[in-house]
Each structure stands twice: as structure tokens, then as C-alpha cells.
């Protein structure tokens, strides 16, 4: 046995390959974190389905004009409160091109209601990839293409029509644009304020910390909805719908940040004592850099999770504000604005389809919650 030379380093002469067993009793935990997170997330079925569902909806947003058969505010006085028309795929047992039965309106002068009868004998084939109502695509050029159009000379009210004879389905599709983006803008604002203030409070401590803490306490003790109401009542009514929309999202974000700031602060307080922060400080890094490149990545997972759990609250907030008539106002279309039409009980009783915006609201809120739960479990793969 040759003695080992103490001045040379021992190296293994065998070739190193990717397939070499890294060893250890926990091969599972030695995977890259990204891979672990993805695997953990994929196991959460409900979260994956929710993520796909939300991704689909958000992908649809740029193309709402294309998808909706009608435009959002197109009225048809002949079809006030028309009931939903079912899309039929089978005729006498055979698969045929999707069709609807034509609907005729008759005034019931005893009940002062419109009664609609479907002519079961006639079939009207729905048109696909067709030329319909003109619209300005992305505000850039005139276009007429639609994914689906009402049959020639007929109507296509998949979810019925509302008080003014507007197609509920088309309005749902258009409303998606505002209802889904309101949360995104709100959460951006909330993140900006929350991470900045929470980061400063946690990193610097001292009087900055106590000031931020007091601010958090004050804002947390405010009842959310009444303050939202008061703030949105202050939005001038003559503003354009787009400006109102941005203002409402800002308002929704303004009250949301304390929870996040608190979490960021407490996390930073503990992280600040870690050695890698000391090392960065000694190497001369500025506080902003330390917070940005060394600390924030360490609790990114927490930020992502709390964002995905805050968005549904904002979506519900917008719905509530618009429902009360203090949020977005017509002609803007959002799910809340649509529900504003379903305020009284007669509507719910006689024309329940007018309230159909509640279904997408519930689905989206649930999806965000499941997604948040899944992310929370996945982001902590070492647990």
C-alpha cells in the first residue's frame, strides 16, 4: 500500500457521468428545486385543472370579439328577456351540424310578459368561422370574422337575452376581459406597495419598522368594503370607462397590501440574520441590491401564493362594487355590471339566466383558490 501524499488532493480517476448516483438516502430531495416543485404541483390534480382552466380563460381575453357571436351592447328589441336557446348536435339520432330552433316572441297582454315559443319542427344551422357584425380588432383595423354566428335570419342566444335584448353569452365573454384583469392590476399594485414597505420595515427595522407596523394596523382595522365603496364613490362619474376601470383596480389594490407586507416583514426579519446576508454586506452590496437579489428570491414562493389567493378577493370586490352601482358603470361590461341587472327578485324568479354571470365568477374564484393551495403545497418541496 503506497502512502498517500498529504500535499496532493485525492481525486477519483473514474469518468464522471450524469447517470452517476449522487448517493445519499434521499435521491428524491436532491433533484433541482424547479423540478421538485413541478412534480409536486402536478400531483395536485385539482390545482392542475384549475391552472389549465385559468390559462384558457386568460388566453381568450385578447380575442373576445372573435369568440362572442354578438357585440356586448348590441340590443335587439324583439328579444327582450329571450330564454336560452339550446344548441342541438343530434337530429333523429344522427350527428348533424349544430343547429338551433327558431324562436318567436309573442306579447302576453294578461301577464305583461313576453312569451317565447320554439318552433321544434324547423332547424337553423349555426354558422362557424363566419362574417358577422363588424368590430375594431384591438382598436387597429375593422374586422368581421367571428368564431360562431347566429344562423341566417335567426338568433343565437346561447344563454338567453337580458332586459335590453343583449346576448348574455356575448356579454359574459366581453365581461371576462375586465373581470379577470382587474385582479391582475390590483395585485400588481398591492405587491409593489407590500413588498417595498414590508421589505423596508423588515430590513431596516427601527422607526421605519414601527411606522410601517402602525400603518398596517390602521389599514387592517378598516372594514374593506365600506372603504372601497367610499373610495369608488369619489371616482368622478364623467371619466371614461377605461379610466374608471384602472381607478377601481388601484382602489382594490390599495387596501390589500398589509397582509403581504406583514408576511414579507417577518420573513425578512429572520432572513436578515443569515450568513449570506452578512457576506453580501461585507462585500459592499447596497441594501436595495441585497433585498432584491438575495432576500426576495428566498420568499418568492410565499409572494406567488399570497398573490394567487388575493386575486379572487379582488375579483369578488369588483363584482360587489359594480353590483352596487359604484364600481364600473355601463356601457363598460364586467361580470359585476351584469349582475347589477339581476338585483331584484323578480328577475331571479322569471329570468334566472340574466344572473348567469355568477357561474363564471364562482368558477374563477374557486380555480384561483385551488391553484393557490396547489402552489403553496408545491413551493415547499422539502417539507
Amino acid at each position, binding site marked *: 500500500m503506497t502512502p498517500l501524499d498529504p500535499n496532493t488532493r485525492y481525486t477519483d480517476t473514474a469518468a464522471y457521468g450524469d447517470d452517476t448516483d449522487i448517493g445519499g438516502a434521499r435521491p428524491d430531495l436532491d433533484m433541482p428545486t424547479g423540478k421538485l416543485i413541478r412534480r409536486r404541483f402536478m400531483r395536485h390534480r385539482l390545482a392542475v385543472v384549475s391552472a389549465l382552466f385559468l390559462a384558457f380563460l386568460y388566453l381568450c381575453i385578447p380575442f373576445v370579439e372573435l369568440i362572442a357571436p354578438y357585440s356586448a351592447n348590441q340590443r335587439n328589441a324583439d328579444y327582450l328577456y329571450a330564454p336560452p336557446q339550446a344548441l342541438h348536435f343530434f337530429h333523429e339520432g344522427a350527428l348533424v351540424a349544430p343547429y338551433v330552433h327558431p324562436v318567436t316572441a309573442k306579447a302576453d297582454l294578461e301577464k305583461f310578459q313576453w312569451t317565447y315559443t320554439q318552433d321544434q319542427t324547423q332547424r337553423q344551422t349555426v354558422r362557424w368561422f363566419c362574417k358577422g357584425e363588424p368590430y375594431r380588432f384591438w382598436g387597429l383595423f375593422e374586422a368581421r370574422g367571428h368564431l360562431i354566428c347566429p344562423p341566417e335570419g335567426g338568433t343565437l342566444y346561447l344563454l338567453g337575452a337580458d332586459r335590453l335584448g343583449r346576448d348574455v353569452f356575448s356579454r359574459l365573454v366581453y365581461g371576462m376581459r375586465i373581470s379577470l384583469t382587474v385582479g391582475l392590476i390590483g395585485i400588481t399594485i398591492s405587491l409593489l406597495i407590500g413588498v417595498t414597505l414590508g421589505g423596508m420595515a423588515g430590513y431596516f427595522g427601527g422607526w421605519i419598522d414601527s411606522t410601517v407596523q402602525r400603518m398596517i394596523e390602521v389599514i387592517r382595522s378598516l*372594514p*374593506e368594503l*365600506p372603504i372601497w*365603496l367610499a373610495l369608488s364613490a369619489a371616482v368622478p362619474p364623467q371619466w371614461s370607462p377605461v379610466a374608471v376601470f384602472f381607478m377601481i383596480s388601484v382602489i382594490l389594490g390599495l387596501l390589500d397590501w398589509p397582509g403581504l407586507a406583514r408576511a414579507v416583514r417577518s420573513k425578512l426579519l429572520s432572513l436578515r440574520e443569515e450568513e449570506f446576508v452578512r457576506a453580501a454586506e461585507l462585500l459592499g452590496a447596497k441594501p436595495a441590491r441585497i433585498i432584491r437579489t438575495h432576500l426576495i428570491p428566498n420568499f418568492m414562493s410565499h409572494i406567488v401564493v399570497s398573490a394567487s389567493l388575493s386575486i379572487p378577493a379582488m375579483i*369578488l370586490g369588483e363584482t360587489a362594487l359594480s353590483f352596487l352601482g359604484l364600481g364600473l358603470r355601463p356601457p363598460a361590461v364586467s361580470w359585476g355590471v351584469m349582475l347589477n341587472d339581476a*338585483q331584484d*327578485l323578480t328577475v331571479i324568479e322569471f329570468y334566472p339566466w340574466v*344572473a348567469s354571470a355568477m357561474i363564471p365568477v364562482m368558477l374563477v*374564484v374557486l380555480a384561483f383558490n385551488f391553484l393557490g393551495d396547489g402552489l403553496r403545497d408545491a413551493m415547499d418541496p422539502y417539507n
Partner: protein
Amino acid sequence: MIRYLANRLMTMALTLAVVSALVFFIVNLPPGDFLSNQIAELQAQGESASIEKAEFLRKQYSLDQPQWKQYFIWLGAMPGPDGYSGLLQGDWGWSFEFDQPVSEVLEEALWLTVVVNLAAMLFIYVVSLPLGTIAAVRAGGITDYVVAIIGYIGLATPNFLLALILLYYGQQYLGIPIGGLVDPVYEGEPMSWAKFKSILAHLIVPTIVIGTAGTASMIRRLRANLLDELGKPYVATAKAKGVGPVKRVVKYPLRAALNPFIADIGNLLPSLVSGSVLVSVVLSLPTLGPALLAALRSQDHYLAGFILLFVSALTLVGMLISDILLAILDPRIRFGGRSR
């Protein structure tokens, strides 16, 4: 304990002061005020007599002063013109829309708001305590799933929709009265057994609607806490020593899990009060909600300001109560100052 209480009350008073300034600022955000709008309208119609009255009111309630002065006068820290004394002296201001003092406009609404929120609170605790316990003890069982599903529905349905739906079906199938808090027959009558029963019947739907979301989150929290507690070795020891199934859960684990459950009143109350505002509008309950909405729409800023302040004070008092309860339950908080 007394020092802790004094400390807590001080912070609450300070918070309330800041909140009042915030509220005043927010309420005055829209340009103009109720009276100047009214004066402009009256001038357009050429009615000079009413203009004089409006001008008089403007002076009386110091609306012609700069805003910071208005705030202090409203608060009562500064003497207003003609003996208007402000909140601290018990003068809540004038509601321009109803042409009455705010105290008279809100007389009924104040205590009804407190009653409705208390009822919702009771509902939440009465429902979530047993359900949360069962869900934790039989985790993965049928109760657990049913509770989870109800919880998710409560989480995802906007309050006001739930109100509309429950209102409709409650009336249709169960004969639960619609709208308001008391039968019109008893309106303005002194309290009697029949009136009390009528109020109770009217409270069913609002309580359930306002309480559902809170119940859902409470159940989830209690379940999580209790599950943590049940996994601890002392529970296994108790089981090994032959302690019965009920006592094994209730005696120690449940008590330990109750701590955060009570601390949560602080989080629960703001959302409860918020929710009740919206639900009252839908159910037309004569609470602060509809009054707030009307006041905000017409820029009746003393009324709106007072309601916002009252609602905030309600949440602060709720937090105070939860802190006191916690201090009683948990000596660490009582003696160690803040535990967070």
C-alpha cells in the same frame, strides 16, 4: 393585566384617531359637497329662500372653512361656529339629505347593525366549533368532505348572490319573511314578545349569509390547528392509557387549538362588518349599509363619515375583545407583552 389593558386601550384610541382622519379625508375626496351642489342647483332654478337656508347650513357646519379646520371641528377638538361641538362632545353632525341630525337618522340602524353582526358572529362560532372538531377528528371522512365542499362554496360565492338566492328559496319553500328586519305590522311599536319573534325570523337569512364565508374559514382553521394538536405524543399517551374518545379530544387538544380560533375574531370582524354592509343593501335591512350607500351617493359627508367611523370603531372594539379574551386564556400574552 391592568397595565396590558391600559396599553391596549391607548393604542386603540390612537388608531381610532388616525382612522377618523383617514375617513374624513376619504369622504371629502369627491369635489364639492352636498350643500354646494344643492346651492348650484337652486341657483339654476332661481330659488333664493332655500339658497339662504343652504348658505346658513354651510356656515353652521363650517363647510366654508379649510379642510383641516373642518376635520378638527367635526372631531370636536376645535369649537365650531354657533356652538356646533363635534363628535367628542356627542354631536354627530347634520345629515343634509334627510335634513335631520345624524344621530336621529341612524338611531335604529346603529343597534340593528350591532345585533346583526353579533348574531352572525354567534352563528359562526356555534356552527364552526362542532363542525371543525368533527372534521379534524374524522379527517378524510364524509363530514370532512361535506364541510370542505360547503366551505369552498362559501368562499367562492359572492355574499350578495348568496343573499339573493337564499332569500328567494327561503321565502318560496320555508316561508321565511323577505326583506327588512321586522314585520311592517310591528314597525314603530314598543318591544314585545311577538315583535321579538318577528325580528328573530327576519334575522335567519342575513345571519346565515353574512356568516357563511367566515364559518368556512373558521372551520378550516380549527381543523388545521386541531389536526396538528391531535398528532402530538400526549394524545397517543392518553389513548394508550385508556382515556375515552370524547375526553381525549376535548380535554387538552381542543383547548390548545381554541387559542388561534379566538385570536381570529380580529381578522373575522372587519370582513363580517364589510359583508354585512353589502348584504344589508341586498336584503334591504335597515342597518348602516343602505344608509352608507345613499350618503356616499349624495355626498352627505357627515352621515357617510360617521357611518364609516362607527363601522371602523366596531372592528376595533372586536379586536380589543379578542385580545382581552386571549390575554385571559393565555398567560404568556398577559405577562410577556406582545407575543407576536
